[in-house]
Structure formats: structure tokens, C-alpha cells
């Protein structure tokens, strides 16, 4: 089946898959958001342990999705992998460090003789929540703002700034997406807690946090979107592969790809609904908010990825040398590899089915103080 696809069709198919993984990853960052709320919501050790245990059974999904996102990006667009990871060295290394300390923090924090102490492991969780959301958001924003690299004919890349990717954090647009993702992850975490925690005090505090985080999220998200719509974008001449700056490129992409525009709009509206409905009627919508906002997040981020990669746009542009910019056609794997990988991608629905099935079983009842007597506690 996939053998008959053109190389362009396969590249588009894989861009869609990578975009989907990226958007699911952003949704799953609610785990990270939750990690930054532990001390704000939990005033006692027991409360904190309840909170950690509700997200504790989910951290591996975020982690695995990140790893799979990286693996899929490597397999389908290896030139992005080699250029960005080797180039923006420090950004990726910091993100990686943030994830190393996360995995062990859950398992080790409440174990006796854990050497560093519970406070340090809880700090690890906070650091992971803060850095991974801000930096992943900023890194995605460079899809629109550009990076500083050169690529030669052997496809060897060279970063032109010694800040090695850290410069991305000093761009207002990148920073606003980074912070928007950070606050969004806290919004999603709050909504997730409404659904999973059975404790009046924690839920009361969480309701306030929802509003405190929704406001900065909206401010930064609007700032990012506004800058995006008005900025010049990195367009590609499909005949020659030449990259050039086109005014209002991303706005035009929305107009020229109405489906993407609809997805984006639907995503934003769903996120808003997920925030506003629980505020208006907590009894009716408190537990449902996460579905609205979660689904909305996936749609909005998915459409942002499509804006970056489709409609003759360079998804990883270089501001140091426009012609070094990466597009889905000049950075992809071969037809054979994309075909083989496409067959593998057919198992994704089955993976999703068993994940949903297991989540339903594990989350069948809310977590409260009684669960802490059970065998596996973080």
C-alpha cells in the first residue's frame, strides 16, 4: 500500500505523525505542570503524596511519548535530528537533564535511605516541570522564528552562535510560547486533579490555581499567536527549493489551508471551554474540563506543527543562511525507509486502544488518603 505513495505523500504522512506525537506530548505535559503545583496545592506531606501519586502513574506516558517523538523524528527527518540536536546542544542537554532527574524522583522520593532526601527529589520534580515545559515550548517556537546554523553539501551542520541554542530563550516570541506551554501545563494539571483527587481541600486550592494559571496562559498564548500572524515567514519555492521570506506567511498558511485553520480554531475554543466551564459550574463540568482542554491542546498544537511544515514552508529555518533551512522534503528519510516505517505506524491505533483501556482501569476510582496504604506509593 505505502509503496505506491509518492515521496512527497510519505513525507507529508510522516510530518502529520510527528505533529500528532508532538501535540499529544504537549497535552501529556500536564504531568510536568502538576509537578510544579505540588507545594502550592499540598500543605501537608500527605496531601503532597496524594498529588504525586495521581500524576505518578502517568509520568511514564509523557516520558515514553517524548522518547518516541524523538525516535520518530530521527527516523523520518534525520537531518532535523542531526542539525538541531548537535547544534542547539545546550537546550537539548538541559531538557535531557530535566528528564533524567524526573524519572527517579517519583520512585525514590518516599523510599527510606534515599540519600538525597525527599525535598531534593521534590525539587527535581519542580525543576523538570519548569524547564521541560518552557524549553520544549521555546524549541517548538523556533520552527517559526528560525535558528542559527549552516549546512554544507555533505549535510554537516554547524551552529553559528556559541550560545548553542540558548539564544532561543531570549526571543520574545519563543519565550511567550515557552511560558504559554508552562502555564497551560498547570491549567491541564488542575483540570486533571479535579477528575482524579478525592480531597476537598486540595480541590479548593486547585480551583484557584486554575484561574491564576489560565490568565497568564492566555496572555502569553495571544502574544505568541499575534506575533506569529503578523510576522514574515520562511517560504519555499516548490520548483527550485529556494527559501525566501514571505510577509504574513503563517497567516496566509491558515487562509490557504482552511482545514488547519478550523482545527486551530476548534482547538483554541475547546481549551477555553475546558477552562471556563468548570469555573462557571464546577459541579457539572469540574471533572469534564480536562477532556475539553486536553483535546483542544492536541488540536491546537497539531495545527501549529502543520502551519510550520506544510504549504511550502520551512519547518526548521536558518536565519544564518536561508538556503540551509530544512523543509519536510529536503530533510527526510528515503522513500524505502518512510515506506517501511509507515507500515510500522499502523500499530499506533492498537497502542492507543490498550493505553486507553489500561488508563480507564487504573483511574476507575479517585485517589485519596486511603490509597496511600496500598502497596506502591511514590
Amino acid at each position, binding site marked *: 500500500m505505502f509503496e505506491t505513495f509518492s515521496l512527497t505523500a510519505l513525507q507529508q504522512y510522516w510530518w502529520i505523525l510527528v505533529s500528532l506525537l508532538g501535540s499529544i506530548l504537549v497535552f501529556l505535559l500536564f504531568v510536568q505542570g502538576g509537578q510544579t503545583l505540588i507545594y502550592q496545592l499540598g500543605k501537608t506531606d500527605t496531601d503532597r503524596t496524594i498529588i504525586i501519586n495521581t500524576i505518578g*502513574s*502517568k509520568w511514564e*506516558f509523557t*516520558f*515514553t511519548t517524548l*522518547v518516541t*517523538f*524523538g*525516535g*520518530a523524528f*530521527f*527516523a523520518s527527518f*534525520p*537531518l532535523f*535530528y*542531526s*542539525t538541531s*540536536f*548537535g*547544534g542547539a*546542544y545546550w537546550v*537539548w*542537554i538541559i531538557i*535531557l*537533564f530535566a528528564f*533524567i*532527574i524526573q*524519572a527517579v524522583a*517519583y*520512585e525514590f522520593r518516599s*523510599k*527510606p*535511605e*534515599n*540519600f*538525597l532526601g525527599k525535598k531534593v527529589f521534590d525539587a527535581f520534580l519542580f525543576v523538570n516541570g519548569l524547564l521541560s515545559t518552557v524549553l520544549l515550548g521555546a524549541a517548538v517556537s523556533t520552527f517559526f522564528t528560525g535558528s542559527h546554523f549552516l549546512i554544507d*553539501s*555533505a*549535510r*554537516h*551542520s*554547524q551552529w553559528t552562535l556559541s550560545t*548553542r541554542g540558548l539564544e532561543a530563550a531570549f526571543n520574545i516570541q519563543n519565550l511567550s510560547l515557552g511560558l504559554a506551554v508552562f502555564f497551560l501545563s498547570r491549567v491541564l494539571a488542575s483540570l486533571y486533579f479535579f477528575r482524579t483527587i478525592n480531597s476537598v481541600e486540595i480541590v479548593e486550592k486547585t480551583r484557584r490555581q486554575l484561574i491564576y494559571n489560565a490568565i497568564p496562559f492566555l496572555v502569553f498564548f495571544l502574544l505568541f499567536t499575534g506575533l506569529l500572524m503578523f510576522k514574515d515567514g520562511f517560504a519555499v519555492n516548490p520548483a527550485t527549493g529556494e527559501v525566501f521570506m514571505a510577509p504574513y506567511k503563517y497567516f496566509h498558511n491558515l487562509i490557504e489551508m482552511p482545514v488547519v485553520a478550523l482545527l486551530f480554531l476548534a482547538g483554541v475554543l475547546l481549551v477555553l471551554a475546558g477552562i471556563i466551564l468548570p469555573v462557571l459550574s464546577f459541579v457539572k463540568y469540574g471533572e469534564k474540563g480536562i477532556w475539553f482542554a486536553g483535546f483542544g491542546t492536541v488540536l491546537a498544537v497539531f495545527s501549529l506543527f502543520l502551519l510550520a511544515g506544510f504549504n511550502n514552508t520551512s519547518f526548521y529555518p536558518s536565519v544564518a543562511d536561508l538556503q540551509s533551512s530544512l523543509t519536510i522534503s529536503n530533510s527526510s*528519510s*528515503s522513500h*524505502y*525507509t518512510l515506506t*517501511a*516505517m509507515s507500515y*510500522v*505506524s499502523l*500499530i499506533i491505533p492498537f497502542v492507543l486502544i490498550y*493505553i486507553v483501556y*489500561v488508563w480507564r*482501569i*487504573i483511574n*476507575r476510582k479517585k485517589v485519596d488518603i486511603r490509597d496511600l496504604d*496500598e*502497596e*506502591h506509593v511514590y
Partner: protein
Amino acid sequence: MTQLYDASLVDWSRAQFALTAIYHWCFVPLTLGLSFIVAFMETLYVKTGSEEWKRITKFWMTLFGINFAIGVATGIILEFEFGTNWSNYSWFVGDIFGAPLAVEGLMAFFIESTFVAVMFFGWNKVSKRFHLLSTWLTAIGANLSALWILVANSWMQHPVGMHFNPDTARNEMTNFWDVLFSPVAINKFLHTVSSGYVVASVFVLGISAWFLLKNREIRFAKLSIIVAAVFGIVVSLFIIITGDQSARLMAKHQPMKFAAMENLYEGQRKAPLVVFGVLRNNNKTDLDKNEFALKLEIPNFLSSMAFLDANAYVPGIKDIAEGNPEHGIMSATEKIEKGKTAIIALKDYNAAKKAKDTVASNTALSLLQTNYNYFGYGFLTEAKDTIPPVKLTFYSFRLMVVLGFWFVILFVLALIFLSGNKLENKRWFFRLAIISVPLAYLASQFGWIVTEVGRQPWVIQDLMPAITAVSNINVGSVKVTFVLFAIIFTLLLVAEIKIMLKQINNGPKDGGN
């Protein structure tokens, strides 16, 4: 493909990869093996309904959980390090190497991370049978993840199923099945996961022996030892068979590694196997013979092992480096020449293509194709550059094998003592079993040292030396990240060991863990 980087950048990048890989491998073997051991134990619990087996299962499962998280944490680094520190490599082979990594994520990691949650949190939430299924799926998922990364590693040792595309300056996959079912890949997978099973068996045996030494939890310890020793014996046989097979594959595909592993400088027929040897370190250059101060050898055995023929000729380091026309071995110098021809042909091809000169580009292309098998040699300067560190490879191999056989003896003794009901007063045996636990980890690490150090200077056998594979980063940055990784991994390792020891000391608990 034309750039050669600072040697210290290569060394630091290598050091960082070695550090992170060794730390990762401190945790993975136990995850691979203990997941199955726990699954056997839980199966016995579900079959017999005995609370004792549930208690046993939960105790080992707790240790599994502590180890599992840190294995995951150290693993993410390796995947991304291909990009951060070996970015030229990532492009040169990304078309082939990326696919197994992606499949690993999709097929294996999700199984592992989904069902491990049921395993830990599901005791009171799902049926007994579904919980057991989850435990098995966790084990299968963990081992499947090992499959894909080992396929990728094997491909680097013996690249198959691909061709070089001069237009994209990279190797492209032409046959997925050749990559997946390469004999080197299958052998490496089986040999490596079985080493994990041996580590886990020794781990369970050693800790159970500690309980017996302390005169605590006698029944628990004996039952655990039965599972560990039976599993250990079966997988040890497996590791011996696959190890023997891997010697033959190595002799065929990586003769230089094979010669280095044996400290064999001058090739010979009826080559003996040095079972045990001490090197004199008398050689002045890498091409000089390194004499044995003492050695114990089995006549003809190396020839038999490598080629199933006692009379077969086994080439030595000097034969491979300097060439041996009598046996049809091309010298490294000649290979370097051919490699340089290939590199120049690639440049000429690109220039001719730009100038739209079809004749010249076709000539260059055919020259490139004729010499491509030696492409990587073109980045080396002299014959000695093709020789890996001999001493480290030689000693690591011996230690791995000797320890491997020791573990077989250990498992057999455990079963003999158990069947004769004579285990309880064998305090010397308990002590031996306990000190064997760190030895099992070491043996497994030695195996990787043979594989990885022995194949230097290659990142991809014959096609890409490490010196052309690294990212173009300033060496200072790599030094800083090396130190950061060393600090954080050491802290986490200490924490893990302390937590583990505490949990072991607490012992199994009734009902809970």
C-alpha cells in the same frame, strides 16, 4: 564528510558516550532478567494460590521498580546523544538507524510503560489474571526494547541492507528485513538479553543467600533460589551457545576485533586459544607483538572456534594491518588509499553534477562505487589507526568468559545443595553467592567493552571512523556535560544502591511490599 575534528573532541565525546552507556548498563540487565523472574514467580502464585509466592513476587517486584526507573532515566540520554554528540553519524546512517529507534518507541516502550503501571498500581484494581498478563507484558516489552536497540548496534558492527546514495551523502536502507534478521543482530540480541538474565539470576541468588546467611526468611529465600538457579542454568547454556556463535561471526565480519581480543599478532593455522594469559606490555608501537608473560592455552581451539576447522588460518593483527598476500588479506594502507579514492570520487561526483557534466559524474560515481566498501579508511592516516586497544579487549574478554563459567557452577551448586536439603549450613556458599552479584554486573560490562572497544576506530565498520562522526561542538562544552553526567549519574547510583539495600534489609512483608 570532509571535516576531521580535533582529536580531544572525539575522545571526550567517546568518553561521554561510554560513561552514559556504562551507567545505563548498570540497570538494564537487571530489568531484562528480573522482569521475567518476577513473571515466573507471579505465575506460580496464580497457579498455586499460595500467599507465600505472592509475598515473594512482591518483594522482587519492589526491587524491580527501584531499578526500572533509573534504567529508563539513563536510557533517554543514549537516544538523544546520537543527535547531540554524533550528529554527523546521525545523518550518515539516520535513514537506517532511526527506524529501529522509532519502532522501539512505538512497539516496546508503550507496552512497557503501560503495563508497568498495572503491575505496580493494579494489585487491588484488576483481576489476578489480568495482573499476571501485565507482568508478562512488562517483561516482553522490556526485552523488545532491547531487541531494537541491539539491531541498531549490530548494524553498526556489520552494516547490511543498505546502499550509499551520493546525492544525499548518506547510506539508505534497501531492505528492512536484512537489517532486522542479520545473523549478527539475532546473535547479539540473544547473547545480550541472556547476559541480563544471568545477572538477574545471580542477583536473586545472591540476595536470597544473604537472607540465609542472616538466618532470616528461610522459606522465602529457598523458593527464590529455586527459581533463580533453574532460570540461571537454562540461560547460561544459552549464553554459551550464543557466545560461541558470536565468535564465529566476529572472526568473519570483524577479524581485527577478533585478533585483538586474542592478542594474536601473527596469524597461524591450528591457532590455540589462550584461556588465561598475562601480557608483558613490551611492544613499542601498536604494530609490535605484545608478548605473553605467562599463558595457558588449548591447542587448535581458536581455529576451531572461529572457523569450525582446527586447521583453519586465523589472521593476526599484523596480517590485517600490514596485509598478507599469501592469504589474500589486503593491507590497511591499501584500504586507506581506496578510501581516499572513494572520498575524492564523491567530491568529483558532486562537482560534475553541479557542472551538469554527465560523463564526468558517471566516471566519478563508478569509481566511488568500486571503492565504497573502504570509504571509512579514507579518513585514517596509517595502518596502526585501524588497531583497537588490544590489552583492554583481551582482558575484558577473558574476565567475561571466566565469570560466565563461574556463574554456571554457582547455579549448579545451588541446585545440588537444595535437592540434597544441605543448603542451610553452607555459609561459604552464601558468601560466594553474595560476592558474585557485583561480579555478574562486571561480567556484563566486560562484554560490552569487548564489543565496543574492540571495534574502534569504527563507529560503522569500515565506513565511518569515530573521528568523522562527532558533532561540531567546542570540546569545552562536551567536557562540562561529561562532568555533569558523571555527577548526576553517580548521585543517582548511590541513591539507588542505598534504597535497594534498605528494601532488601526490610525483607518481604506480609500482604504489602
